[in-house]
């Protein structure tokens, strides 16, 4: 058997996932020994047309990070799907929409207004916002269309495996690569993270699970050993997949949920509110939650059941 | 009283009106056991004051009798009743609340208006005479520091005390 052909692609994302690939350190040597990287825009000079020219299913595995924010993202998702045997949604943005999925609380126009006109650092006297085609000297320029609603990769094309996280936990990337290299893969549609929750890996002690007051992290004197919930701080750990070794709670920061919901859950924010509702001693406490969507759906709004805010 | 509270109080029955005010919150807990009455040194020497009856009248909604009567001013604020009330009715505070209502309606005994005007003028409810102030040095006492009349005036106008007082003056 010849060397595997691997591709990495970067759609709407911050780039952190690309760094995470490099964070596997010397493991990369093993990877390149067994595999050729055939497409990786961040590191290699290959044009889209080169990919288009590849035969269908000629890429063995494509790691796709980033969400589908615009037409170009979607075109590339579809293209890479066609060219790849295995498509892995890599990172929170590809899997659940990621932090940028919170833009689904707005629409294209309000995003443009904010980004291109309103931010204090913006100087845009002519109020230019992106258009799909612009007449310039020398012809017409085309820009990919910016969608009203950000989508996840799976909402766009069929995805074989999911490796969530912001970025995905390094040990899980290594495990996934090993599984791919060895061909020892779980059933399609699975996540490559463990099925447990962050709590399972978290060393903090759980106590009475009663929340009489919700506090933000700066409002408590953390004892560094009691579960955040028992200190009145909302922690997404219970509703978030394991795999990260609870590195945030271990560093005294509550989990914000980047690994996405558990395997049997479609809506991470709703899932954590169930637990919260059960733990509250007084329903009025509910009102103390500042920014509920930002808290419960920090990474997963685009993948939630309702997916976005309604626009009338 | 805050505006929202005042609005709420309008149209309430008298017991509710009292209960909605600062100090009056506990009035409805009273079950007329009379501990307050037997605790009260004033009730023992005058038939004109009995805290149990005062609360009963209030609970029965006898607003005019309570507010315009003499009784609310006869409490000596000794807190004996409040200390021993088995229902934790804060009787002395309730009586303050009743007095507050009376004041808002312009019913106020002269001695209290003396206190109020002294307070507004000097920042003290009893004026320190020049004579006494001068005498301090002969006694070996340090001179008095200035009072915070200005700050007090602003506080009194923020709480509406000034207006309450002026309303009384007009009456």
């Amino acid at each position, binding site marked *: 058997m010849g060397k595997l052909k691997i591709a990495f692609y970067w759609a709407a994302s911050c780039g952190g996932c690309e760094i995470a690939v490099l964070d596997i350190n010397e493991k990369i040597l093993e990877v390149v020994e067994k595999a050729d990287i055939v497409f990786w825009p961040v590191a290699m000079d290959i044009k889209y047309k080169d990919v288009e020219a590849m035969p269908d299913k000629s890429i063995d595995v494509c790691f796709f990070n980033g969400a589908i924010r615009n037409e170009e993202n979607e075109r590339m998702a579809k293209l890479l799907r066609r060219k790849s045997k295995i498509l892995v949604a890599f990172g929170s943005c590809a899997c659940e929409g990621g932090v940028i999925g919170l833009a689904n609380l707005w629409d294209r126009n309000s995003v443009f207004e904010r980004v291109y006109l309103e931010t204090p650092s913006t100087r845009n006297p002519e109020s230019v916002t992106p258009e799909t085609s612009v007449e310039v000297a020398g012809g017409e320029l085309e820009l990919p269309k910016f969608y009203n609603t950000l989508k996840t990769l799976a909402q766009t094309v069929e995805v074989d495996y999911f490796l969530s996280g912001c970025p995905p936990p390094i040990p899980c990337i290594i495990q996934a690569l090993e599984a791919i290299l060895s061909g020892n893969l779980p059933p399609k549609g699975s996540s490559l993270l463990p099925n447990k929750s962050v709590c399972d890996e978290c060393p903090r002690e759980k106590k009475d699970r009663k929340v009489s007051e919700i506090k933000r992290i700066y409002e408590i004197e953390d004892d560094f050993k009691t579960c955040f919930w028992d200190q009145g701080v909302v922690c997404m750990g219970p509703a978030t997949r394991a795999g990260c070794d609870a590195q945030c709670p271990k560093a005294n920061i509550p989990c914000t949920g980047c690994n996405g919901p558990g395997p049997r859950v479609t809506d991470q924010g709703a899932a954590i509110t169930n637990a919260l509702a059960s733990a509250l001693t007084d329903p009025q406490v509910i009102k103390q939650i500042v920014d509920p969507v930002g808290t419960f759906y920090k990474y997963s709004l685009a993948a939630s059941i309702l997916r976005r805010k309604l626009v009338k | *009283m*805050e505006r929202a509270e005042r609005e709420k109080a309008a149209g309430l029955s008298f017991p509710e009106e009292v209960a909605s005010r*600062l*100090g009056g919150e506990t009035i409805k807990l009273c079950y007329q056991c009379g501990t307050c009455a037997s605790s009260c*040194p*004033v009730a023992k*020497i*005058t038939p004109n004051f009995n805290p149990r009856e005062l609360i009963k009248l209030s609970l029965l909604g006898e607003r005019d009798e309570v507010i315009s009567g003499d009784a609310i*001013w*006869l409490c*000596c*604020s*000794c*807190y*004996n009743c*409040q*200390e021993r009330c088995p229902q934790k009715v*804060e009787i002395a*505070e309730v009586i*303050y609340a009743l*007095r*507050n209502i009376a*004041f808002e309606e312009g019913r106020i005994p002269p*001695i*209290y208006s*003396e*206190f*109020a005007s002294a*307070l507004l003028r000097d*920042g*003290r*409810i*009893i*004026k*320190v*005479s020049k004579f*006494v102030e001068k*005498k*301090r040095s002969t*006694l*070996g*006492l340090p001179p*008095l*520091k*200035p*009072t*915070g*009349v200005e*700050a*007090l005036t*602003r*506080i*009194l*106008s*923020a*709480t*509406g*005390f000034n207006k*309450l*007082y002026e309303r009384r003056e007009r009456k």
Partner: protein
Amino acid sequence: MKRYALFLGCTIPARQPNYELSARKALTKLGIELVDLAETTCCAPPPVRSIDLETSLAVAAYNICLAEEAGLDLVTLCSGCFESLSVANNMLKGDEHLKNRINRVLSEVGKEFLGSRSVKHYLQVLVEDVGIERLKRNVSRSLSGLRAAAFYGCHALRPSGLLGLDDPERPRILDDLIEALGAESVEYRNKLKCCGGLLRGYSDELALDLAREKIINASRAGADCIVTLCPFCFVALDMGQLQMRSRYKETYDMPILHYSELLCLALGADPKELAVQTHKVKIDKVLDKVL
């Protein structure tokens, strides 16, 4: 040396500089440093509370803010001030909603009540900071043979939940302090009942009736004097006796002493330094007995 902000209030500077004098002398001698704050006002006692409860809380809280800014706890010589300030201090400390409400008022004068300081009656300072034992050691003129009737009045003890000076049903602090000076504290009927002071000016009759009962009960119990811890009680009982004489056509001759005066005597002070001639009922009987 412990420092306190001395809160004088209204009655003492207006009517009883002698009380202030003895208290300053005694406390200073026992190692307590007293600081006078500028810009204080009336503590907003029951007469102000009767007009508007919110105002009284705000005014009391304003005065506490001054102490908070100075970084000092407050000490009062007057039970009225002690009660007003303690009630406001403890109510606001225990009720976030009320605290915010009062702070909205205080923001008008650029103040914010934090609840970082405590309010003490000077008897507490004597017991807690000086200590009964040290007090005893400082006594140079024992008052043994003196039968003193301790009179607590109301506002040093009640509402007990917000004051915490002593058990409102069985207080000991003043009795203990009297006995620390070598005198005997005598029991008498209705010791804990009100002096009627707050009714003065509204119903002098009733006020005098209440005060009279105190005088009668204490003399029946064979007391040489009544010892007070509040200028209001003092006036009610001392000035009160003159008024009783004319009203009831009876003779009353019960010396009334501030505890601080008794303390100064025990600490060896010359009565002349204490301006005791301002007492309406002469205290010569007491002086004869102890000097």
